[in-house]
Each structure stands twice: as structure tokens, then as C-alpha cells.
């Protein structure tokens, strides 16, 4: 693979597909889009299999000085690798999910999705600060169109809100980037990750980056764009939003905020903790009372992403690894849950929970998949959700038992709202005739759901496959953060050992055994 610019190739394939889709009619566009995303996925698998675990930190690097002011520099570490694999894995699923539900302006729709894929890969692979910004911000255009053209009834409001919210968040980051580049004299991300900015400046820089990433993640109270955007977006749009776009925020924290401003990150850790604790409890409670399935899952996303931010700012290896696994897992699970909603929406054109019921009777396979993803969302052992949440909470417990305590309620509340949702949709009597008449999932829907289900179980049973590529990078990050890590409240003082073990029973001697 030496010399082959595989990252550029992975961006070029969907880009060419997007151009082809724009000029072709409905059915052709669908097949072109599916083909392009599958080729990109194969390239993603090639990328993963050629990634050397324990090799150099930055692999597959490419560099070309094409532009004035910044350079076209690509390269990935394990963290970026896993997120790229997640993106290219979800894309064919998205195309399949829109196969029948999108009937108007199919060419433009597919082009927007393929363009989105280019930008997502570019964001994760960019090694130049400004190149990152270009990819990061450019995603607004296709997403605005996807929500606005193919969205639900209130799509205009949602698209405006999404666009302006995220734009306002990121422009301040751009100013901070200019300052950093002027200070450090380079826009190379790996160099900047090792650069020590003056602590006074770090505070401002961190806040500017936080403004952008907190909106993207999204953190309470900046999350209000998310339920609107999710509910109004078409199914595949929601999958991409929840699956990948929210991860841009988490990726931003792990790539920029933490390594570049470790002191400021420690200083603001409690801000992040506080917002995350509120998010976990508050959005879970809000999710509990939703009547709209998509809105419920959207609020659950906010709660799950709060576990990510808590894990990231735990400043230890478990927390960071857990946050990454929660991100990957949430990408799969919430994407799959939106697909499940989409399956129902395609049949009955409503997302109102009360319109369904007893689906386990007439849609058993659907109910099975839905149950699996529900359990994964709750964090049942054996699914991906458990691994991530356990590691994250174990990580944060080392830093603050209070935060761990409050965030763990999120799992209980998560079980409450997810099981409540599942009970109302899949169990109980068949209250609505039209819902009872719905057919079970088709072959196309099997093809969408089965790979995600397999990945969820794989990540739950053997997370090592996903942790191994990231381990070295997280260790590097942890070493960089070690000096700045906030004091832990779980530091136990070693006392004098007891004379006997706690379970020793001196008055019972073995001689008495057998006496009765």
C-alpha cells in the first residue's frame, strides 16, 4: 500500500459519485450512490487492515502545497481511523435507508449524501488546522439542503436553526485558530498537539473551541437545535447526524481541546462535568415524556454524548477509551434506532408512539432488531453500549465519585425511557388496525440492520478490536494530560492492615465438622 494516497482516494470516489448523481435520474443515482459508498467502505476496510497497530502515530500521511495560507495535509491516527471506519460503514446503510422513502429529486439527494461523506472523511483525516476547518464547516451546506429539501413539515425552521447555531459556534473557533497559528508559526495539527500555549491564552482558546464543539456534541444548554434537526430530517439524515456529525464535537475535544490546551481543559473540567451531569439527568427526563419517537431518540443522544464528554474530561486512560467507545457505539446504535423509526415511518408516515403497539406480533424480526438496539442503547452487557459506558464511568469515578454517581443515573433513566418506548411500540395489544397490518422488514431492511447488529455485538463481546488501534494514541494523550490532570477525590489513604482477614471465623474449627 506504500505510496497509494488512499485517504485522497476515499474522498475522490464519493466526490466523483456525487458529481455523477447530480446529472443522473432517480434509479441510476441510487445505484451510483450505493456503488460509490460500497467502494469507499471497501477502501475503509483496506485502510483498517493496513493500519499498523503500534506503528508510527500518524499513518497514511499525504501532503501537497496546493493553496496559499494552508496546505492539503492528510493523515490518521487510531482515533481518526475508527471514526472514518464508522462513517464509511454507515454511509451505504444511509443510502439503502433512503432507497424507497426518497422519491423526489433523488439525484441531488444522493449527491448531497456523497458530498457529506467526502467532508466527514476529510474532517477526520485533515492534518492542517485550516483544512480541518474547511471540511468541518462545509458540512453545513449539504446538511442544510438535506434537512430543508427532504425534511418533514417544519423543516425550514429546523434547517435555519441548525445552520445558524452551528455557524455561530464555529466562527469563533476560526479566530482562535488564527491566533494559534500566529503564535505557533504552523498550522500543522501534530505539531500543535505538542505545542505549549501560554496558560492565560489557553483559557480563551479553549472557550472559543468549546463554543464550536459544545454546539456540535451537543452539550446542554446548546442542544436545542438537535431535536428539531433530527425530527425534521429524513431518516438517513438523522442517521448521519447522530452517527457521525455529533462525533465531530467529541473528536474536536479529543484532537484539539485536550492535547492543545491541557491546562485550560483541567481548569474547565468542572464546567464540562456540570453541563454533562445536567444533560444526563435533564435530557433523560425529557426523553421520558416524548410522544415522538425520533425526538425521544434525539434527546437520548444528548444524554449519551454527555457520557462522552464526562469520559473525555476524566483525564485518564479509561475515561478516554470509554468516551471513544461510547462514540463509536452511539454512532451505530442511535443510527440503528433511527433506522428502526424510519422503517415504521415508511409504512405508516407517523412517528407518534401512540399510533403503534403490539408490533412484536406482526413484525417479529423487526421487534428483535429493535430490542437488540434498545438494549445496546441502555448499555446491556454483551452490547457495545455497556463497554463504553462502563469504561467512561470507571474513568470518571477515579476523578470524581459525585459525577460518576449522577451520570450513572443516566443508565437507569436510559433503561426507563428506552424500555418504556419499546413496551409501547412492540408489546401490548394491537390497538391500531393499520399498525397491525404492517408487514415485517423487507430484504433491503435486513441488509441495513443486520450489519449494524453484528457490529454492535462484536463491539460488545470483543471490544479489543476497536480499542487496539487507539490504545497508543490514547496513551500519548494521557501522558500529555498527566501533568495538568485535576486532583482526584478518590485518593484512598492506606491504613494499617487488619490482623485477620475480614471473613475469618476463628471460633469455628474444622474439628467440629462432621459432628452432626
Amino acid at each position, binding site marked *: 500500500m506504500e505510496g497509494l494516497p488512499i485517504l485522497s482516494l476515499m474522498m475522490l470516489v464519493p466526490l466523483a459519485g456525487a458529481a455523477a448523481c447530480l446529472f443522473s435520474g432517480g434509479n441510476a443515482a441510487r445505484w451510483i450512490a450505493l456503488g460509490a459508498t460500497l467502494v469507499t467502505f471497501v477502501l475503509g476496510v483496506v485502510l483498517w487492515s493496513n493500519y499498523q497497530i503500534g506503528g508510527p502515530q500518524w499513518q497514511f500521511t499525504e501532503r501537497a502545497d496546493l493553496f496559499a495560507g494552508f496546505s492539503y495535509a492528510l493523515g490518521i491516527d487510531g482515533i481518526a481511523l475508527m471514526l472514518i471506519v464508522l462513517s464509511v460503514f454507515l454511509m451505504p446503510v444511509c443510502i439503502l435507508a433512503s432507497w424507497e422513502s426518497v422519491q423526489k429529486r433523488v439525484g441531488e439527494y444522493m449527491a448531497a449524501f456523497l458530498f457529506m461523506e467526502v467532508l466527514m472523511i476529510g474532517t477526520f483525516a485533515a492534518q492542517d488546522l485550516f483544512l480541518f476547518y474547511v471540511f468541518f464547516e462545509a458540512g453545513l451546506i449539504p446538511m442544510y439542503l438535506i434537512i430543508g429539501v427532504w425534511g418533514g413539515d417544519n423543516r425550514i425552521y429546523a434547517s435555519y436553526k441548525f445552520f445558524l447555531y452551528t455557524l455561530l459556534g464555529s466562527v469563533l473557533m*476560526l*479566530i482562535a485558530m488564527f491566533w494559534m497559528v*500566529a503564535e505557533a508559526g504552523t498550522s500543522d495539527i501534530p505539531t500543535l498537539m505538542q505545542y505549549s500555549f501560554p496558560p492565560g491564552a489557553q483559557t480563551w482558546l479553549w472557550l472559543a473551541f468549546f463554543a464550536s464543539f459544545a454546539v456540535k456534541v451537543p452539550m446542554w444548554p446548546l442542544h436545542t437545535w438537535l431535536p428539531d434537526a433530527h425530527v425534521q430530517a429524513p431518516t438517513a439524515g438523522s442517521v448521519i447526524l447522530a452517527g457521525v456529525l455529533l462525533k465531530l464535537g467529541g473528536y474536536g475535544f479529543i484532537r484539539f481541546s485536550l492535547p492543545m490546551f491541557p491546562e485550560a481543559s483541567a481548569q474547565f473540567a468542572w464546567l464540562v462535568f456540570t453541563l454533562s451531569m445536567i444533560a444526563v439527568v435533564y435530557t433523560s427526563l425529557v426523553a421520558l415524556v416524548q410522544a415522538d419517537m425520533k425526538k425521544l431518540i434525539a434527546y437520548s443522544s444528548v444524554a449519551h454524548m454527555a457520557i462522552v464528554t464526562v469520559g473525555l474530561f476524566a483525564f485518564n486512560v479509561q475515561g478516554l477509551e470509554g468516551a471513544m467507545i461510547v462514540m463509536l457505539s452511539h454512532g451505530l446504535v442511535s443510527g440503528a434506532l433511527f433506522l428502526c423509526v424510519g422503517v415504521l415511518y415508511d409504512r405508516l408516515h407517523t412517528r407518534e408512539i401512540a399510533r403503534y403497539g403490539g408490533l412484536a406480533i406482526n413484525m417479529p424480526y423487526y421487534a428483535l432488531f429493535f430490542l437488540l438496539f434498545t438494549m445496546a442503547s441502555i448499555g446491556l452487557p454483551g452490547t457495545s453500549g455497556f463497554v463504553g459506558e462502563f469504561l467512561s464511568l470507571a474513568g470518571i469515578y477515579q476523578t470524581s465519585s459525585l459525577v460518576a454517581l449522577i451520570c450513572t443515573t443516566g443508565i437507569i433513566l436510559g433503561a426507563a425511557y428506552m424500555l418504556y418506548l419499546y413496551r409501547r411500540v412492540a408489546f401490548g395489544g394491537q390497538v391500531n388496525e393499520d399498525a397491525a397490518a404492517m408487514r415485517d422488514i423487507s430484504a433491503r431492511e435486513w441488509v441495513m440492520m443486520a450489519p449494524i447488529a453484528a457490529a454492535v455485538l462484536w463491539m460488545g463481546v470483543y471490544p479489543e478490536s476497536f480499542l487496539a488501534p487507539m490504545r497508543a494514541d490514547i496513551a500519548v494523550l494521557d501522558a500529555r494530560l498527566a501533568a495538568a490532570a485535576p486532583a482526584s477525590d478518590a485518593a484512598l489513604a492506606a491504613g494499617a492492615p487488619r490482623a485477620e482477614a475480614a471473613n475469618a471465623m476463628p471460633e469455628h474449627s474444622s474439628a467440629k465438622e462432621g459432628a452432626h
Partner: protein
Amino acid sequence: MDFAHSFALVLPELLLSFTGLVLLLAAAWGGDKAARQVAIAAAAGLFVAGFLLVPGLHFGTDGPATLAFGGLLKIDSFALFAKALIYLSAIAALMVAPAFFNSAAAGVERGMRAEYPVLILFAAVGMSIMVSANDFMSLYLGLELNSLSAYVLAAILRRDTRSGEAGLKYFVLGALASGILLYGMSLLYGFTGGTGFTAVRAGLTGEMGLGALFGVIFVLSGLAFKVSAVPFHMWTPDVYEGAPTPVTAFFATAPKVAAVALTARVVFEVFGAQVPAWQQIVMFTALASIIFGALGAIGQENLKRLLAYSSINNIGFILLGLAVANADGASAMLVYLFIYVAMSIGSFTALLMLRDDDGALFETFADIRGLSVTRPAIAWALLVFMFSLAGIPPLLGFYGKFVVFQATVEAGLVAFGAIAIAASVIGAFYYIKFVKVMFFDAPSGVVTGKSGAAHWSLLGLTALIISPLGYLLTPSLTDLADKAAASLFLAV
């Protein structure tokens, strides 16, 4: 004084003046039937004049060898850069005109008038003099030649009340601004004893008296009117809306370039020793233009009016580069200016293509509803221009904002840059309204007219420049802008 040398330096202007005079005669004898040929000849003249600039642009010229007519004019890289942009904009204004004037869009006065290309030529000569002026006298000469041509251009549809109103408004307010400028110049002359830029500069060193400060402020106010910066922007929406659309396209590009270049030259070469005196003024004007340009645009229904506010908003970003007051800022400003011209030509060309079967133009949001279904090519091009104007990457408009804000932050004006960039989000609101109306709303289907090759090629070319491919231009563009900015600072 070596006249041969001076004439060689002003060869493009000589060529344009000569072409203009000949074409004036041709127009007088040939009448309006010859209008098309006159326009083609004028465009050819502009093209040749532009071609004459290439060697100087490429190799860069500065120093005493660029002074012509005893220091009245200074044809350095900076002037060449501005002139190239002006000539290109003028060519575009000529290209889009015939289809407009020869259709129902021109109302009762159907048929292009032969004066139109001639006036554009004279305006271009005036602007050439403006950007190469090195003396307040030549500055005023160029400014008035340009302005008088522009007043007539705005009112060229004589029987159209909107056009006449635009011409009159432009004339009255323009004359007022010229008066303010002239008054400022006279104050500066009185306090420094010269009209040449070097002489005034020499007189403005050290502690500046109140009279001289008033001179500076009056000159800047006059110039702010010409670039339509807040608080001297009020004429812009009315004139842009009333003037015939090809003329509006011209107003939004060439005179803006000339006025911005002139302002840059005046503040750096004349007031270069008094940076604190004018920097605050420019900073205020820049911020006010960004904010009021954006706020004013929000309620607009008329697309031309909206683009007028958009140009005020963009002037704010250009002035941001000026407010930085160093060579990086000036270079960033020129890069932005180039991108702004491309975006403006593109969006006005797209507006000119919104026609019905008779060629009458549509200019409100209601008319472009669902344009992406009925006329996808125009809609996608407009989408590119609007997102680019909003500064969303990966379109080239982002690069303009990128260089300007980079210069701002590198010069240490971080808070200033942060406020300005946050205000730019307000502007995004109405730019995405364009996209919303064209892509999200149900089609109104009124835009049915076909457009000619001139429009399509101009639209395609500008869209290509603004598309991400335009980033490949940035190394050479930055190089040219750096040379131009460096020549501006040589005297300092």
C-alpha cells in the same frame, strides 16, 4: 519631465480614451443600430488595455520609475492590480448589457443605446486615474470622470421613472460627497501647503492640528460615500434597485474596486504617518458596515436591493483588511476584492437570467420560489454564490474572509476580529434565505426565458472561480496581491 516615459506608463488609459472618443463618433453617426458593434469594440479595447497590464502585474513594478507626469500619477503594482479588476468588471458589464436592453426588461425603451459602452469606457478611464492618483488634483479628476459617467449610466433608461430616480439620487448625493471630499482636500492643502500625496504626507507628520484632523475626516467621509460604507451607505439600495440591472452589476464591481483602492492609497500614502487618527474611523466604519449591511438586508424582498445591502456588508469585510493598517491587511483586502468582484458579477448575471419569455426580469423572492426545480443550473449557481457570500467553506468566499481575519488577528486586533466574525453570522441569515426560497419552496414557475451564451459563459466562469476549484488560484492571487500591497508600502 520625460513625456515619453509618462505616456508609456499611461498607455492603457490613452488607449481607452482614444477608443472612447472614436466610439463616441461612431455612435453619433451610426446611431443605436451600431450599439452592438460599439459594445464589442469597447470590450476589445478594455481587453487590450487589460492585456497591457500583464507584464507589470507579473513582474511587479514600484519605485520612482512608476511616477508619471511629475508625480501626478503613480502606476505601481497596486494600481495595476486594481485596474485589472476594473477592466474585467467593465467587460462583464458590457457582456451582460445587450440581452437586457434588447428585451422587454428595458421597458418602453427597448434597444441598446450606443452611449452605454462609451460611458462604461469613460468610467473605466476615470477609475484608472483614481487608482493611480498620486495627487489630490488627479484624484479628483478621475473621481469626477467616473462619477459623471456613472450618474448618466444610472439614468440611461430615460423614460423609466425608477432609472431616472436612481440617477438623480446618485447625482445629488454624489455631488454632496464630492463636495465633502473637496472641502477636506482644501483643508489639507491649507494645513500642509501641497496637493501632492508626498507633500501632504510630509506636512502631516508629528502632532496633527485640529484643522488637519478635520481635513482627514472630511476626506475619509467623502471616500466612505464612494465605497458605500456605513454611515454613508443610504444611497446604495435605492440606486442599485432603480438602475438597470447591468448598470447595477457594474456599480457593484468596478467603482467599488476603484473607490476601495483609492481609499487604501489615501490612508496609507497620505495619512500613513497618522495611523491612529484614521484607524479607529476605519474600524468603526468596517464594523458598522458589516452589522448594518446584514441587518438591513434581512427584511428585503427585492433581490437587487438585497444585493445592495450585501455589498455594504462585503465592503465592511474589505475595510476590515484596511483597518489592520499593514501590508498583510492590504494584501488580504485585495484578495477579498478579487473574490468579491467574482461573486458580484456572478450573482448579478444570475439575476439577469431570471427572465420570462419576453425577457422581462424578475427581481423579488416570490419569483424565484422553487427555482431549483424549474431552472436547476441557475439555482445551483446562485446557491454557490450565496453560500460563498456568506463565507461558508469550501467556496472561495470563505478564503476572502479567511485572509482578512487572519491579517486582523495577526495584527493583534483579536477582539475586533471576533466581533466582526460573529456579526458575519447575521449576514448568513439572508444568504441562506436565497437557498431556502430556491430549493425548499414550491416552484412558482414564472422564470421561463432563455439566456444567451454571454450570460451562460459569464455565469459558468464565475461559478467555477468561486467553486472549491478556485482555491487552486489562491497561490498566484496571493502572490499578485502581495506585490501590489508591497508597492503601496514602499513609500512608507
